[in-house]
């Protein structure tokens, strides 16, 4: 079942410097439970695609259907994970995780239990009442992911969520995030400039062109349910990397 359909979307925005066409005839469909990555030259508008899906900006033309409904009609079906964890230092881990529920006035004992469950399930049981500064970078990113899961979003939008981490941490957090998303059976779209990261996590890798961004080519990967670290060890990995790298370069 297609959970997300982006159909011929154009986006032009105005600024003091002039008119910028960010997206041109952009189309993409994502199936439920799929993990899709967007890669492309920097500044090509990858993040813009996520903002469109989240309904934070509207397309100039074309349509975006999320779960069969136009975005903007039904808010908050998405869970956003950003470059930095953006945890609020003055809130405990539990309160951070429940931020979205609080904003949407849905905080109750039921969703608190769900949040505690998730924290426990993903190795943060002893930290519910701690503060973000007491956690490592990897743990903080896991908290940020759980914060998005608490709202039970239909789709997760990951905007370079690992780029602020050092390489060692990045590999292990990548594995963590992948397995959490898989075990919660979520659909996810990852924006990254790191091709190997895209290959290690996704079912499909979408290569975008330079601005105005359009879908240049889609690579379907066949790693099955292998975790990111195992994928990196497989013989297919460098082959896929070469193919995608060439496509991004040209």
């Amino acid at each position: 079942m297609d959970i997300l359909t982006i159909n011929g979307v154009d986006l032009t925005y105005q600024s003091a410097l002039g008119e910028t066409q960010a997206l041109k005839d952009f189309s993409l469909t994502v199936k439920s439970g799929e993990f899709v990555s967007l890669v492309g030259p920097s500044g090509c508008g990858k993040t813009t695609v996520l903002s469109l899906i989240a309904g934070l900006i509207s397309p100039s033309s074309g349509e975006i259907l999320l779960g069969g409904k136009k975005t903007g009609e039904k808010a908050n079906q998405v869970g956003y994970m950003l470059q930095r964890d953006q945890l609020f230092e003055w809130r405990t881990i539990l309160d951070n995780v429940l931020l979205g529920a609080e904003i949407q006035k849905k905080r109750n004992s039921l969703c608190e239990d769900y949040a505690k469950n998730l924290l426990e399930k993903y190795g943060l049981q002893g930290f519910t009442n701690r503060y973000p500064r007491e956690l490592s970078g990897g743990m903080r990113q896991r908290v940020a992911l759980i914060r998005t899961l608490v709202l039970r979003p239909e789709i997760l939008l990951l905007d370079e969520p690992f780029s602020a981490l050092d390489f060692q941490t990045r590999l292990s957090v990548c594995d963590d995030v992948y397995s959490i998303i898989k075990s919660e059976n979520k659909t996810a779209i990852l924006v990254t400039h790191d091709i190997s990261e895209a290959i290690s996590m996704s079912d499909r890798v979408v290569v975008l062109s330079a601005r105005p961004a359009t879908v240049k080519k889609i690579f379907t990967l066949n790693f099955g349910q292998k975790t990111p670290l195992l994928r990196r060890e497989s013989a297919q990995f460098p082959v896929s990397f070469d193919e995608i790298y060439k496509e991004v370069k040209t």
Partner: protein
Amino acid sequence: MKKILSPREIYLRGEKRNKNKILILRVAVLVLFVALWELVTAIGLVDTFFVSSPSRIFSTAVDLFQGGEIWRHIGITLIECILGFAISTVVGAVIAVALWWSETARKVSEPYLVVLNALPKIALGPIIIIWVGAGVKAIVAMAFLICIIVTVISLLNAFVGVDEGKIFLLRSMGASKWQILRKLVIPYAIPDFLSVLKINVGLSWVGTIMGEYLVSSAGLGYLIIYGGQVFQIDLVMTSTVILCILAALMYATVALCCKYAKRFS
């Protein structure tokens, strides 16, 4: 036998010694200053008519407190200062929130804030007296004017400096502007708010005493000015010392509150 110390113990002992040294030197500076002052006046090297002396300050203080009249002066000055401090902090915070809320208002007010910040507020003294009348009201108004601009500018800077990423996150969760203010901007700015409080304690004293110099019939600033006019240097010095102690106490109180608030935020 002498005990052999570990490097850690030697380090800690050194640190402690250093700390004690600073404390002793601090007290020594004060004692030396007072002693020297007393000495040069006692042997007649300098005339107490111009510089007073520690012993004369002490006896003047004893007289003042025995007379009881001083309590009224202290009370009036304290009330003026606390009112100026409290009103400017509250009003300043409200204005800062309003300017954060409306970008138009923020941009329109920007040049005015800059000019008002640069303006020496004492220049407004005559206007204040004409508008609110001489007396306590004028003095509170002076303290208020001195504090308010700094409060607005510092708090607004803190509000505007909130991490864009965090605002984006809240918006992606569907947060309203009001929720962004309550859940993010205000808690984020609390450390800045606490430092504004500390700055305002000092500034409200400046405003109060300046106000009392301009118009007053009571208060420590009045005593200082009065003492100066009738050439009673003992009264000027004694009032100044009392003022120092009060200002230090008020600052310490606010600093203590800040420390307490920080621990629970």
